[in-house]
């Protein structure tokens, strides 16, 4: 008996479907269900009530925390885009041999394969009260007293985000830049364009898909984060992820689930908007 091509394909993806069903679809469904449950101090009770959502939307904390989340996402996005684009541009257009391009590109990616937690910890000796930044600034005479807002502040949170996630901009932007036909740039130069004009009118428009993919990565990673905010702000700032993890710590699962549902919807709406600007399947 010969299998039809369709059933062959379905057989090949069956392990993938199984994993995604059990560990992605079911958990989301579970969260959606539990978000309507009721909680007592000791247990959670199946029910169909809207009190978790009512409480969530009725509290001013929610709006502040969502605002904070968007603020982190926006600042981090701008910083990673600027740095990521510049680095990718340097690698793609100023490094002349493929060997060096690959070597420097790998140098950018290696930290991605190491632990995020340790990369956060490693900012302590830099930013701490008696850290390198403060003692350097004092020895230069720029400041008299150590700056208190370096570590455990919004500044530290954004710095850590940029440190952790710039790579997610570099890789897709570099990837699209490498596919730009170099003769287009020569043509622009022959037609009399200067460097800035070439960058603005040729390279940036052609790099847009990479920028969009990088944006999707950075925005979703920052919006879904809870550990960077907790660690780098010294528990002084909050984003939506922390709201969820605090509820979890109090075993208030229905409330955590309701927040999670709203967060997921928010992220999906943002992604839906971003996906209008890029066809991911074409860019792979």
């Amino acid at each position: 008996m010969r299998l039809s091509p369709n059933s062959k394909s379905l057989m090949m993806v069956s392990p993938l479907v199984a994993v995604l069903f059990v560990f992605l679809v079911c958990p989301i469904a579970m969260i959606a269900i539990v978000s309507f449950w009721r909680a007592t101090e000791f247990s959670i009770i199946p029910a169909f009530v809207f009190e978790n959502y009512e409480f969530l939307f009725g509290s001013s904390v929610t709006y502040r925390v969502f605002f904070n989340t968007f603020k982190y996402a926006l600042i981090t996005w701008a910083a990673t885009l600027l740095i990521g684009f510049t680095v990718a541009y340097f690698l793609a257009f100023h490094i002349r041999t493929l060997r060096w391009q690959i070597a420097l590109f790998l140098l950018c990616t290696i930290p991605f394969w190491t632990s995020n937690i340790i990369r956060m910890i490693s900012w302590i000796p830099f930013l701490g009260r008696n850290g390198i930044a403060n003692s350097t600034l004092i020895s230069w005479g720029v400041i008299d007293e150590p700056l208190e807002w370096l570590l455990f502040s919004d500044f530290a949170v954004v710095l850590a985000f940029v440190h952790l996630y710039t790579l997610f901009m570099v890789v897709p932007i570099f990837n699209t830049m490498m596919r730009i036909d170099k003769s287009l740039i020569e043509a622009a130069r022959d037609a009399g364009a200067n460097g800035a004009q070439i960058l603005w009118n040729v390279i940036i428009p052609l790099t847009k898909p990479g920028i969009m993919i990088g944006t999707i990565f950075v925005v979703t990673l920052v919006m879904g984060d809870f550990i960077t905010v907790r660690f780098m702000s010294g528990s002084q700032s909050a984003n939506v992820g922390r709201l969820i993890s605090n509820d979890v710590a109090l075993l208030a699962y229905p409330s955590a689930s309701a927040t999670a549902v709203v967060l997921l919807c928010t992220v999906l709406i943002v992604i839906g908007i971003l996906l209008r600007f890029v066809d991911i399947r074409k860019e792979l």
Partner: protein
Amino acid sequence: MEPRSRSFYVLAAFFTLFMLFLYGPTVTIAILSFQGPSGGLTFPMNGVSLHWFRDLFEQQAVGDIWGSFSRSLVLGLMVMVTTVVVSVMGGLAFRRRFPGSNILFYLIITALVIPSILISLGVGLMFSQSGLTVHWATSGFGAQLTWTLPFGLLIMFAVFNRFDSSYEEAARDLGATSWQTIRHVVLPIIAPSLIGVALFGFTLSYDEFARTLLTAGSYNTLPLEIFGMTTNVTTPVLYALGTLTTGFSLIMIGAFLLLTWVSTKRKARAGSDAGKGMV
């Protein structure tokens, strides 16, 4: 070659600063982990010693580091093997459209962009409500796969988009079955990328925090253990551990990259014997 423009030097300086930004903090804690026994969490160095590393190898109050390391290692290998196998099968299947392929594609994207705490929370709830106990090798393993598989699949999609299918047609014309074609033609050609997928699978699992937080159960993986330490350990022993595990990651990354490089070389050498007079 035309001479370097001024913008090259400006950008090269920017790139160097970026590298400093990227690696500086890690290098700093690597240096500080050699603090003397009375040294603190910042400079100055109070002598140079292996004191804090020795601390790690002794039974002490900081917890079960070696147990969590071995769990992370085993889990990383499990995730790595699964990611490679499932991604290759998925990549092969996605070369043609099939019923549901669009939905599945968007499901993969969802897995990539969904906040990790949702996976952690959802899987944890699912297990507790159905009376199962969360364990790093079951719920933790599955939760991590939702993060590593999308990366593996995206790499495979990229590889197969550039794959020259005339090699397969040639094999088929020579009478190879579809399994033989995959085994002797497709897999050897994509081998270097498979090592890349393995690298992602292993390292992303080995360092994963958020997705294992509520799914690992009573036995911690290493990142969970390290995070626990950040709240109650205030000595450079934290740096020593960070340095060791980063060193371990770097060794693994180096090994994977070396393997990729060797297999690319081998492929280039063995790829064609045209004109060599072999029969």
